[in-house]
């Protein structure tokens, strides 16, 4: 027990440095907390929007149900590639395995680390919904106790499930020669399959709904712990609380005990990088001359391709974007009629604003696919090589932004061109969409690198820590979400003024160009100097 506590203390002291901001600037220190607060306020407002009509039909708890199911699905989906990163490819494996500690203890501590981060991020979504419910229903003390148990225990099962998937992916990848690329392809494939299954679950849910006595009965049938949690909120019973704790904790215990041996054998297989036959012994090496820019971009792309958690985190949105565009192209009438049948209160003809919808999708995809927010941190100890090179800091910054453009623009453009052809979008909005496909990835790229230079994590134990658990990735994602929200809000407001669609798009683009220029100016004047001060 003493060893376990020491290990937890050491692990968390090291990994929770996400919350220690080294910046001397007071505003920089508070920025993450301000952003977290803004995010929570946004979700509070959103839950308020949902709860008001539900109060009239006494279904207030449905808001909590939605947020619980949403966070569980999000934790599970993200956890699939996060777990492979957190549990495998750790730099402290050799140290920990040389110590007299049980394997199950090491696995438990790593899962605990995974759990704590999920707990923190889930709380940002769950707490606003729980507060919103409390404000309207004015529940008793048991509600607050149950809420605490809910926040603490609900992430466990999605974590366990995603860990099993992560272990499976890592096991299959460990058999391949190029483990990293195999891991990336396999994770993309599995996530795709899960998305398709979720998409095709309509019929299953409908049949469950027909046989369910209430909405909560339906939730219990779909996901038992969530249903149990909502049951306790509506009508607390002590036995339900015991069941809730048992149902959530038991899978974790089983996971640790079952996988402890398999986990370490997969881990050691993943670490074998030398080919069985030794080195290639090939003396015909290629000498290729490139410009500084293209050499740099090639290096960054190589890093992206060989870091599964990085490519999955940054590019999954792009793949999803293409999927949505293709689905919409195939089934546009179905999508629009579903929107209208779902009671979406949209005061205009959806067909007439298709270019704006595409623009919204481009903004959403670009701003949430932040590659650069981890690029400096992922340099790790090799950051000194970068700094010793004869290149100006602003050039390094821009080369990293160009990498984003090289990766993102072609994918976004494919979606835009498919949409232009299918929906017969006019010349002006088409041109504006093409320009937007270049401008928004630039904003995302330069914003990400500015944030990463301000909040670097050059001493991370693994890539997942940088990509998923660093302050810069949190700020970039939150900033991306808020930015997307702001642009879409602006579009709706401009439509209210009965402006022509092209004028609305032009106004959004002008604003985007102004923001791009400001960010470039900031990168040149401030981030370059901050970059010079960074040392490993």
């Amino acid at each position: 027990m003493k060893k376990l506590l020491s290990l937890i203390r050491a692990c968390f002291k090291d990994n929770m440095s996400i919350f220690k901001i080294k910046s001397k600037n007071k505003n920089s220190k508070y920025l993450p907390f301000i952003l977290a607060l803004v995010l929570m306020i946004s979700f509070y407002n959103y839950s308020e929007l949902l709860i008001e009509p539900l109060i009239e039909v006494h279904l207030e708890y449905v808001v909590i149900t939605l947020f619980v199911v949403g966070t569980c699905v999000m934790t599970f989906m993200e956890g699939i590639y996060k777990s492979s990163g957190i549990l495998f490819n750790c730099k402290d494996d050799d140290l920990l395995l040389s110590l007299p500690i049980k394997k199950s203890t090491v696995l438990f501590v790593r899962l605990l680390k995974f759990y704590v981060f999920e707990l923190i991020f889930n709380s940002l979504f769950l707490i606003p919904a729980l507060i919103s419910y409390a404000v309207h229903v004015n529940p008793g003390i048991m509600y607050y106790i149950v809420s605490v148990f809910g926040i603490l225990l609900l992430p466990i099962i999605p974590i366990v499930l995603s860990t099993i998937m992560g272990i499976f992916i890592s096991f299959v990848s460990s058999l391949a020669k190029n483990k990293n690329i195999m891991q990336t392809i396999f994770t993309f494939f599995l996530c795709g399959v899960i998305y398709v299954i979720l998409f095709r679950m309509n019929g299953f849910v409908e049949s469950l709904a027909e046989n369910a006595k209430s909405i909560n009965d339906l939730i219990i049938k779909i996901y038992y712990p969530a249903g149990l949690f909502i049951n306790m909120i509506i009508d607390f019973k002590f036995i339900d609380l015991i069941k809730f704790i048992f149902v959530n904790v038991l899978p974790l215990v089983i996971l640790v005990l079952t996988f402890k041996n398999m986990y370490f054998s997969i881990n050691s297989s993943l670490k074998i990088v030398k080919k069985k036959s030794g080195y290639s012994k090939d003396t015909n090496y290629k000498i290729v001359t490139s410009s500084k820019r293209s050499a740099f971009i090639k290096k960054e792309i190589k890093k992206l391709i060989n870091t599964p958690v990085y490519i999955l985190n940054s590019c999954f949105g792009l793949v999803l974007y293409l999927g949505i565009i293709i689905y919409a192209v195939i089934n546009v009438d179905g999508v629009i009629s579903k929107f209208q049948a779902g009671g979406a209160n949209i005061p205009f003809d959806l067909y007439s604003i298709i270019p704006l919808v595409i623009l919204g999708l481009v903004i959403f995809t670009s701003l949430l696919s932040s590659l650069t927010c981890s690029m400096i941190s992922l340099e790790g100890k090799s950051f000194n090589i970068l700094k010793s090179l004869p290149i100006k800091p602003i050039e390094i910054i821009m080369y990293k932004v160009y990498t984003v453009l090289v990766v993102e623009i072609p994918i976004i453009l494919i979606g835009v061109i498919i949409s232009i052809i299918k929906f017969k979008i006019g010349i002006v909005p088409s041109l504006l969409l093409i320009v937007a496909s270049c401008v928004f990835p630039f904003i995302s790229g330069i914003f990400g690198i500015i944030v990463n230079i301000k909040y670097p994590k050059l001493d991370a134990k693994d890539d997942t820590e940088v990509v998923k658990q660093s302050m810069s990735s949190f700020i970039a994602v939150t900033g991306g979400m808020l930015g997307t929200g702001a642009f879409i809000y602006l579009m709706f407001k401009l439509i209210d003024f009965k402006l022509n669609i092209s004028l609305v798009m032009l106004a959004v683009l002008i604003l985007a160009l102004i923001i791009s220029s400001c960010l470039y100016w900031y990168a040149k004047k401030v981030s370059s100097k901050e970059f010079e001060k960074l040392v490993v």
Partner: protein
Amino acid sequence: MIEIKNVTKKYGNNIAVNDVSFKVGDGEIFAFIGHNGAGKTTLIKCITGIQEFDSGDILINGKSIKKDSVECKKEMAFVPDNPELYEQMKAIDYINFICDMYEVNDEDRQKSIKKYAELFEIEDKLNDTLESYSHGMKQKIALISALVHNPKVLIMDEPFVGLDPKAVFDVKKIMKDLTKEGTTIFFSTHILEVAEKLCSRVAIIKKGELVSIGTMKEVKGDKSLEKVFLELED
């Protein structure tokens, strides 16, 4: 030539390098020795432009690293103490990347890569990724990358750590050959024997301050460098 003028570097209230000044001339091999935490790596990072310093200046062939860092870096090569290279790259891709950054032309890089890869007996491993390399092999790649662009000033932090005896011998030979062409070599080491045999001048740093500097004879007199070092450390 390297000129260090009253350089001071602080980490908060802790003075890592305190008002250090000295020169290293063209064609000179200069050893920089001191115990762990004395300030060697900090000063090396300042010289290479990796780290900013609080006061003073450092000139590389007459150019200030503070004012004209890119021009200084073009004439310089750095071998870090721990070869943390881009692991996902093949060794040849990494060397090509460094050559691209220093704008080495095709013909020169072809010749240099062949020369040093053969010397370090690593030419049949250049197509392997760096993550499969041992520490010593990575160190060899770091050395090749530093040498391929023919630097006028070579800065090395503990260059012999992890190298096999043959490679140590080869590096020493390369260092001597480079000085004949006028290259300035500045390196830190804990292997006092190497410093004693290889260097024309030496500096000993203690708690961020230079405690002794001069030609090998001036610093050690009739004693061994190890004895002088231990006495100064006491």
